[in-house]
């Protein structure tokens, strides 16, 4: 489980992608303040929408535009009461440009999906102007071959996630049976494969709001100790208290939650950039909570979890690799090599069909693993931008 900011994948029907909202913030931070402005309407495959910000408002030059990468080029012309423009949808800020005093210019760029949006400039006579985006969703600047590769990656990744969730339900149900039988040793053994299934697809699960905290929350994530539930509550009972007492209802709830996850995953709507960001998210999971030994504090199965995260991340990358090789071959080569190095770094800790316990590693070994994680995650974070093309 990550912090709430990690939500990056949306369910079909949800209005806007989490990722888009997140990138909006980053975007505002790195958007340019330039004076060029110009009247060009397209650079590469990015359409440019020139917005004039004034005390009257911030109406777009046309109220309907096609979907795709769009640069909002904003210029404050005589606007003394207004300093910012936000792109909103359904009450959420997708991107914004702030601190545009009179005669300043700035821009933000994002890949617009079809739908109804608003440009919002607080303080103006007309604060909100509608913008309708029409046409096909999110076609990037890529060639047909790239598009075909990405389409295949998306469908293969969906299949992968569904397969993992199916196994998660099966393996969690088996864990529940062992708990109901009061068999601590068997339950401990069955805890492992279920964890692996979950850790491989964690970012997807995290996109479904409350489910991830219920399934994977740690003791301190709950408001009161009585609410502590999910995998780690069971882990605490099995390893710290060496019992299954009181765990049957917790196990039943966990199985029910994994079944809910399975239903939601069947409707998963995901795009290539989200798959790439999910791969990075998985490695950030490793960096923040696995390599530190925080996640599996009772069982010390952190290295096993880490393997799950790495496997899930590598699966996502492997599926995107053909498309990435068309857009940025050097990056594809680097990331593939770093995955190989990461796997080599994990190799010594394999023990049968599992991994050694985290608390058997020396400080130097932990640092070694941490370095491999950083070396991989850094270029991996560039993949999303590389596969959707220059905006």
């Amino acid at each position, binding site marked *: 489980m990550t912090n709430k900011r990690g939500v990056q994948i949306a369910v079909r029907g949800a209005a806007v992608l989490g990722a888009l909202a997140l990138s909006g913030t980053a975007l505002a*931070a790195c958007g340019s*303040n330039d004076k060029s402005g110009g009247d060009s309407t397209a650079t590469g495959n990015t359409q440019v929408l020139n917005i004039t910000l004034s005390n009257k408002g911030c109406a777009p030059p046309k109220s309907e535009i096609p979907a795709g990468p769009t640069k909002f080029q904003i210029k404050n012309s005589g606007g003394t009461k207004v300093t910012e423009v936000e792109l909103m949808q359904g009450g959420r800020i997708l991107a914004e440009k702030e601190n545009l005093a009179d005669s300043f210019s700035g821009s933000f760029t994002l890949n617009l999906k079809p739908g109804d949006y608003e440009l919002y400039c607080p303080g103006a006579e007309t604060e909100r102007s509608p913008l309708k985006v029409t046409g096909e969703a999110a076609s990037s600047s890529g060639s047909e071959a790239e598009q075909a590769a990405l389409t295949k990656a998306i469908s293969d990744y969906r299949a992968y996630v569904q397969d993992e969730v199916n196994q998660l339900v099966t393996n969690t149900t088996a864990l529940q049976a062992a708990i109901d039988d009061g068999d601590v040793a068997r339950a401990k053994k069955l805890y492992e494969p279920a964890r692996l299934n979950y850790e491989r697809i964690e970012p997807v699960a995290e996109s479904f709001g409350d489910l991830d905290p219920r399934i994977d929350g740690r003791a301190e994530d709950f408001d009161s100790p009585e609410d502590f539930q999910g995998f780690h509550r069971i882990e605490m009972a099995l390893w710290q208290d060496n019992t299954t007492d009181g765990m049957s209802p917790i196990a039943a709830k966990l199985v029910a939650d994994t079944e809910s996850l399975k239903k939601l995953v069947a409707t998963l709507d995901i795009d290539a950039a989200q798959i790439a960001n999910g791969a990075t998210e998985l490695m950030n999971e490793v960096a923040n909570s696995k390599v530190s030994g925080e996640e599996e504090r009772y069982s010390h199965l952190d290295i096993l979890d880490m393997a799950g995260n790495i496997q899930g991340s590598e699966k996502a990358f492997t599926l995107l690799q053909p498309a990435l090789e068309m857009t940025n071959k050097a990056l594809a080569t680097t990331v593939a090599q770093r995955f190989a190095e990461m796997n080599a770094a994990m190799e010594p800790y394999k023990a049968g069909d599992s991994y050694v316990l985290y608390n058997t590693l020396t400080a130097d070994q932990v640092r070694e693993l941490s370095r491999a994680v950083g070396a991989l995650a850094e270029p991996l974070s560039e993949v999303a931008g590389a596969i959707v093309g220059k905006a």
Partner: protein
Amino acid sequence: MARQQRTDAARATFSRRRLLGAAGVIGAAGLTGGGFALGSAIATPQKETTAGDETPLYGEHQAGIATPTQDRMVFAAFDVTTGDVGAVKSMLAAWTVAAAAMCAGKQVGDNEKHPLSPPDDTGEAVGLPPSQLTITIGFGPSLFDERFGLAGRKPAKLVQLPHFAADQLDPRKSDGDICIQACANDPQVAFHAVRNLTRLGRGTLATRWMQLGFGKTSATSRAQATPRNLFGFKDGTNNIKGEDTAAMDQFVWVGDEADQAWMKGGSYLVTRRINMHIETWDRDSLKDQEAVFGRFKLSGAPLTGHEEFDAPDLAAKGDDGAEVIPTGAHIRLAAPSRHGGARILRRGYSFSDGADPTLGDFDAGLFFIAYQKDPASQFIAIQKDLAANDALNEYIIHTGSAIFACPGGLQQGETWADKLA
């Protein structure tokens, strides 16, 4: 706001200095954007900035050695984690480009390449002036071991430091293949430099140790007053000053005698993490503290003089027949006359890493930095003597140690990779 100011502020590759100086806080906040805009506007120091606020990366010697000591320092040492020397060289080239930008008060790289990509620059220095940032790099002896085929490029004088009496070195705070010394008058600017270079190097190298220095302890310019160390004493009164080019050439810069061409104009850097027993020092009498240093605490004058810069009279004896500057006094032991005239350029910083987790005592002291042209006859010779005889040893422990060869300066168009070519 005048028209010219806005134009300046709005340059695509903007200068932090120009931005703040000309457009002021609004421009700075506009660039940081997002929810941090307000905080940034408040937090951004409105320093008076001038052209003198920038220290160029390029020159005959690396900046950060003869440069007047800045107020803050971030020092990082790295282990190279790849076996591919080509990757190391590519990284050094990328470092040069990034360092030149940062020293000029600009952001690193492309920060608008794609909304779905992380920006190249980490952003925390946007809106801050260059703050005299200098980035000095060095190569440790281990870089020239069997891993990279660079053994033939190793300068003979780059020797591993020997064990000195009472050393309690932590290997995780010692040594390293490559180092960065980033100094600036703003700690965030120095941190930003190390952070961004570390990020550029990820996968090629990894941080071995890092040290923040919060206050300079040496003056390297005649224009600077002598700062005090955490013992409360003026430190480095007789330090080599950057303006003294004859002394710089005699003691600091490697000259034509360089056995490796890349070391010409360079210097050897020694760092020592020296923990101070602050608690016991503070309970020591003034008289004893002054005897330990051989100087008066407030004035900084030698015990045989009245003013800070009075020459110590090491031979002077008191009425009791004992030496006025005691046998074990720090200034007696460190005196050039005792070491065949040898001097070093000191450029250290006070540090604190918080409280010692076991005892709750200060984990603080001096991050000692010295530059010289010949470690064997300079730092090593002096430190052998100090380690054995210095009265100060009762109050200090050396916990970290490293040596690096800092190559000569870069000409425009040249990169640090060229030094290992």
